[in-house]
């Protein structure tokens, strides 16, 4: 099977999975989490409730509600987000780029730190360095996110502030006052990118500063995973016969490791990284909440605790879409990396 055929087939399945996700989402937000609860307050007269139900379309049979929901979904009529105080689509327009920016930043850290650590660990297998790196990576996957986030916030933001030292911002995406003085036109929504292409270096650096702590938090949790995979796959590859061939045919050790072994070892790392990136996009909920980073995750926490069904639906559909899309991309990249894979 050709790769494009495979991709088309996967996209078919993707639609199927997304349809399933919408059903699940719909079930959750319409039936499990009664959306009415959010639209009725203690002052609402009981007589007014049927009218509210009618306005929300809750009086129709479920399957019709679902069809309407699907129609709205494909026409991007995603409803009003009560927690964002704006239409859901607009909220995503504001918040999704923020999440993407955060994900990219932490992803860069993860790769730049995680992969070299894994390789060093594999090359110095069973040495002190290896053990230190293993402990480090195990700690990374064992540490509670919120604990790490708060600790970082405390050490790099609160403490220096109290001591009157320069501190890292612990909150938000950009300093509101600075932003007021040096506004940036929204182009992609990626604050750093936008401000850079507009030559606004003040905002660019401020936005970068705001990214450091949340990106570090997110990164630290995943570095462990990347390091472990990089290490074990590098060890695995170094054990392979073709490495012996390369050595036996007199190739220099550096070349054997950094060219021959590395490319093979990177295949699983790439797969993991793709999935990780998807996870970062969809899963920065706690980090965003703690650092008040105005991304999707923060919004979702609010949305769930206030039964904002439209926002929940939008988030789940988007997150699932990202998940399946990234899975597809990972598989395609995998095939590109490993010529043995056939579909």
């Amino acid at each position, binding site marked *: *099977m050709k790769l494009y*055929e495979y991709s*088309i*087939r996967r996209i*078919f399945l993707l639609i199927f999975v997304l349809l399933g996700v919408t059903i699940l989402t719909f079930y959750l937000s319409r039936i499990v989490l009664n959306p009415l609860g959010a639209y009725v307050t203690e002052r609402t007269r009981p007589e007014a409730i049927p009218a509210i139900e009618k306005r929300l379309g809750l009086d129709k049979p479920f399957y019709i509600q679902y069809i309407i929901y699907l129609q709205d979904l494909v026409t991007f009529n995603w409803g009003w987000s009560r927690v964002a105080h704006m239409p859901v689509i607009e909220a995503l327009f504001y918040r999704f780029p923020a999440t993407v920016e955060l994900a990219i930043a932490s992803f860069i850290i993860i790769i730049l730190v995680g992969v070299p650590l894994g390789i060093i660990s594999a090359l110095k297998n069973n040495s002190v360095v290896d053990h230190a790196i293993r402990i480090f990576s195990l700690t990374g996957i064992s540490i509670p996110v919120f604990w790490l986030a708060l600790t970082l916030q405390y050490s790099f933001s609160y403490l220096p502030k109290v001591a009157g030292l320069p501190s890292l911002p612990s909150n938000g995406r950009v300093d509101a006052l600075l932003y007021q003085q040096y506004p940036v036109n929204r182009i992609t929504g990626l604050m750093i990118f936008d401000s850079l292409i507009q030559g606004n270096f003040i905002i660019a650096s401020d936005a970068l500063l705001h990214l450091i702590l949340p990106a570090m938090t997110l990164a630290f949790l995943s570095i462990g995973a990347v390091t472990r995979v990089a290490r074990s796959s590098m060890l695995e590859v170094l054990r392979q016969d073709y490495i012996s061939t390369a050595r036996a045919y007199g190739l220099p050790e550096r070349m054997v490791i950094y060219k021959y072994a590395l490319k093979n070892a990177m295949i699983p790392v790439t797969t993991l990284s793709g999935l990780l990136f998807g996870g970062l996009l969809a899963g920065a909920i706690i980090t965003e909440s703690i650092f008040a980073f105005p991304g999707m995750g923060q919004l979702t926490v609010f949305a769930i605790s206030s039964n904002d069904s439209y926002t929940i639906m939008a988030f789940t559909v988007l997150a699932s879409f990202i998940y399946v899309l990234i899975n597809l991309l990972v598989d395609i990249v995998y095939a590109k990396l490993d010529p043995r894979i056939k*579909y």
Partner: protein
Amino acid sequence: MVTEVVKIENLTKHFPIVGGILQKTIGYVYAVNDVTMSVREGETHGLVGESGSGKTTVGRIIVKLTNPTSGRIIFDGEDITRVKGEALRNYRRKVQMVFQDPYASMNPRMTVKSALLEVMKIHSMHKGSEYEYATKLMERVGMSEEHLYRYPHELSGGQRQRVVIARALSVEPKFIVLDEPTASLDVSVQAQVLDLLKELQKQYSYSYLLITHNLAIIKYISHRTTVMYRGVWVETAPTQELFKNPQHPYTIALMSAVPVPDPTLRREKIILKGEPPNPIEKVVACPFQDRCPYVMDVCREKMPPDTDLGSEHLVRCWLRA
């Protein structure tokens, strides 16, 4: 009159290759193409060929691990090609198989004892005396009662294969498919296992279908032999006759290619050029045409007919037709 325990007629197996957006069958691997052969009671029939010749598939079809695309399997005069359920269970009490890698063909988390007793329980044999029977089986394959309590990884390669044989014997079959039974064993152990198989046959007159790539083993143990190439049988004859008087160019080349551990013997070797053809191409003419030193035009057009050379020696080659 010798009776044929198993007879396969025009056996064909094509594995579909699935592909495309809708996961349709877009081609086939032509594994076995029109194979006919039989195994007689109390004798060993060797099935020899190189990798990809379809010999293992024939074995798996006979024990019904997979169904043939066409053709018939006749066991004890009964057509069992499509049997299911209880009939299949009955069939499998008479037919057993020993696999190439004894370690892989044993459940690593079961002791020898539980593996043996499980079989007897399933077939409700030797009720109440399962254990005694298991001990007897172990003795029969040259092992002791003590070995019953071992896990596969606590046994050596030869012992494992003995246990696998004992397990196959536990249902008291008439016929056993031996799929490269010694390929994973060292020479010194291989001899023990081969002798055991021979001894068992002598005592209990089992019929064997011995699948192997090793001509030396064929020569040592089998009574009659069929040579396969690319899913097609090319020659079949009593082993003695085959070795003395090989007729098919492939058989001849194969025999000359086998290294002989006698440095004094200087033979002229026939070196075949090329490699076996791709099994996804349908076999319409002689499968050996591309490598045959004597290839003729007719070889590329039609499948050679089965030619009886007398004394049960059959060959499929236009040279002999």
